[in-house]
C-alpha cells in the first residue's frame, strides 16, 4: 500500500517535469497578454492613450448598439459550419485515395500539399481573384456548358462560399495528419478482417474510421478554432465585402484594433469570441468521449 502511494507520487513528479517547459512558457509568454486583454476589455484603451476604466460598457455596446457585431457573428458561424466539415471530409477522402499503392503517388501527394505551402501569399490572392472574377476562368469554363456566369465574389449570397472554398483548397495539413493517422493503424487489423471476409467498405467503417477518431477529433478541434478566427482569405480577397457578406469576426476585430484604434473594444470582442470557441471546443471534446476511440484506454 505504502509503496504504491510512493510510486504514484514519483509518477506525478515525472509528469509535471515533462510538461514544465509548457508551464514556464505559458506563464511568461501567454498569461501576461491574456490578462492585459481582459483588463483592456473593461477600458477605452486606444493602444497608446492612457486607458480609462469604463466598466461593462464595451460589452453592452457590442450587444446592443453595434450593427456589425451580429452580422459578423452570423457570417462567421455560417463560415465555420460550411468550411470545417467540407475541409475535413475532403481531406480524409483524398488521404484515403493517396494511401493507395499507386505508382507516382509521391508526386500526387506533393501536388496536393502545394496549396498549403503557398499559404496566404500574394500570388494566391491574385489567382483567386482571377479564377472567380466575373469574366474569370471558372465562369469561362461554365460557359462551355452554357451555364450563365456567376458573380462568385461580387454576389453577397455566394461570396462567403467562395472564400470557404479557398479554405477547403488548403486542406493539406489535415490531409497529412490523416495520412499519418492511417499509417498508425496496424496492418494486421485489416489482414484479420479480410480473412473474416469483410468488404472494403465495412473495413472502412469498422477499422479505419474508429482508429482515426483521435486524429479526426484533433483536426476537427483545430480547424474549428482556426475557422472562427479566419482572417487572411477574406482580408486579401474581398476585404469583407460585398456588403459585409464576408466580414468575418476576425476581420471586424482587426478593423477595430488596427484601423479604428478601439483596442479596448476589440479586446472585449475577442473575449466574446474566446468564450464562443471555448464552449464549442468543450462540446466537441465532451462529445468525443462517446465516439473517439483511444488505444490507451481513453482515460484522461
Amino acid at each position, binding site marked *: 500500500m505504502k509503496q504504491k502511494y510512493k510510486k504514484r507520487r514519483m*509518477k*506525478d513528479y*515525472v*509528469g*509535471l517535469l*515533462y*510538461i514544465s517547459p*509548457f*508551464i*514556464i*512558457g*505559458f506563464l511568461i*509568454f501567454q498569461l501576461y*497578454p*491574456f490578462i492585459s*486583454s481582459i483588463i*483592456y476589455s473593461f477600458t477605452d484603451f486606444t*493602444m497608446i492613450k492612457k486607458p480609462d476604466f469604463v466598466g461593462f460598457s464595451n460589452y453592452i455596446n457590442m450587444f446592443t448598439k453595434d450593427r456589425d457585431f451580429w452580422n459578423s457573428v452570423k457570417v462567421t458561424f455560417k463560415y465555420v459550419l460550411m468550411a470545417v466539415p467540407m475541409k475535413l471530409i475532403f481531406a480524409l477522402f483524398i488521404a484515403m485515395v*493517396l*494511401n*493507395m499503392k*499507386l505508382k507516382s503517388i509521391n508526386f500526387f*501527394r*506533393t*501536388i*496536393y500539399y502545394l496549396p498549403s*505551402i*503557398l*499559404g*496566404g501569399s*500574394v*500570388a494566391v490572392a491574385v*489567382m483567386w481573384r*482571377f479564377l472567380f472574377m466575373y469574366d*474569370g476562368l471558372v465562369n469561362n469554363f461554365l460557359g462551355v456548358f452554357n451555364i450563365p456566369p456567376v458573380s462568385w465574389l461580387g454576389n453577397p449570397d455566394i461570396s462567403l462560399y467562395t472564400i470557404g472554398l479557398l479554405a477547403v483548397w488548403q486542406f493539406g495539413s489535415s490531409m*497529412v*495528419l490523416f*495520412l*499519418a*493517422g492511417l*499509417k*498508425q493503424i*496496424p496492418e*494486421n*487489423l485489416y489482414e484479420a478482417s479480410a480473412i473474416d471476409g469483410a468488404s472494403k467498405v465495412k473495413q472502412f467503417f469498422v477499422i479505419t474510421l474508429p*482508429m482515426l477518431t*483521435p486524429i479526426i477529433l*484533433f483536426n476537427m*478541434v483545430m480547424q474549428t478554432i482556426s475557422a472562427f*478566427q479566419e482572417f487572411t482569405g477574406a482580408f486579401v480577397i474581398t476585404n469583407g465585402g460585398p456588403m459585409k457578406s464576408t466580414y468575418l469576426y476576425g476581420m471586424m*476585430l*482587426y478593423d477595430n*484594433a*488596427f484601423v479604428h484604434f478601439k*483596442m479596448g473594444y476589440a479586446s472585449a470582442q475577442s473575449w466574446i469570441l*474566446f468564450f464562443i*470557441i*471555448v464552449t464549442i471546443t468543450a462540446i466537441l471534446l465532451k462529445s468525443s468521449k462517446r465516439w473517439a476511440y483511444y*488505444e*490507451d484506454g481513453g482515460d484522461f
Partner: protein
Amino acid sequence: MSIGKKNKKMIVRIIAFVFLSLLGIFMTYPLLWLISSSFKENNEIFKSLSLIPQKIVMNSYSEGWKGIGQFGYSTFFGNTFKLVIPITFFTVISSTMVGYGFARFTFPFKKFFFSVMLAGLMLPSSVIIIPRYLLFNRFGWLDSYLPFIVPAMFATNAFFIFMMVQFFRGIPKELDEAGIIDGCNSLQILTRILLPLCKPAIFSAMLFQFIWAWSDFFSPLIYINSVKKYPLSLALRMMLDLGEQAQWNQIMAMSVLSIVPPVILFFTAQKYFVEGISTSGLKG
C-alpha cells in the same frame, strides 16, 4: 474469375489516376501560373490567365535575386533558414516532451493545464499583439529572432502539443508496460519505444512548423526592423506598394524560389508519415 478481379482492380486504378490528375491540375493551377508569370513580361502578367508567355523573359530570376539596395535574396534566404530551423527544432522537441507528459502521466491539475493549453489557441491574436510586443520590448528582444525561438523552446504552440497528445494516445499502453518490465525509465520509453512509432506525427509536426514559420508574415513584420534581418516573407512584399510600378515578374520569380525549400522538405519527409508501422506481435 481471376481475370475479372484483375480487370476490376485495373479499372479502379485508372479511375483513381484520372481523378487525381484532374484534381491535381485544379490544385496546382496557381502554382503553374506563378511559374509562367515569372517568365512573362510585366505588362502581360495580369492581362490573361494563359500559362504560356507571349514573349519569354529569362532575366527575372537573376535580376530579382539581386534584391533591393545592399541586400540580395541570398541574405533573405539565409535569414529565413536561421529563423526557421531553430524554431522547428525546438518546437518538435518541446512539444513531444510536453505531449508525452500529458498523454502518459497523471499528475495534479492535469486537466487544468490541458485546458489552459488549449485556451492558448483560442484567443484571437490581434488583441494580444500589443501586450506581447511590449513584453518582448522589455526583454530587449526586438529586431532579433528571439521572439520566435525562445517561445518555441517552451512549447507555446498548443497545436503541436495537442497533436502529439492525440498521436501518443493512439499507441497502446501495453507497449510502455513492456518497457517498464524491461527496466526502461520514462525517458527511455519515450525515446526507444514511442518515438519510433510516432515518426509520422513527428515528421508532420516538423513539416508544419517549418512551413508555417517559413511563410509567416505578420510576426516578422512586427518584430524585425532591420532589412538585413528580413526573412523571405517580408522581402517578397518589400517590392509591393500601392502606387508604384512593381517588377511583377521578379516578384513572381522570387516567390517561386521561396517555395522550393518547403516543397523539397515535403517531398523527402512524406515517406516518413506514409510509411507503415508494424506493431504486430505486440498487438492482437
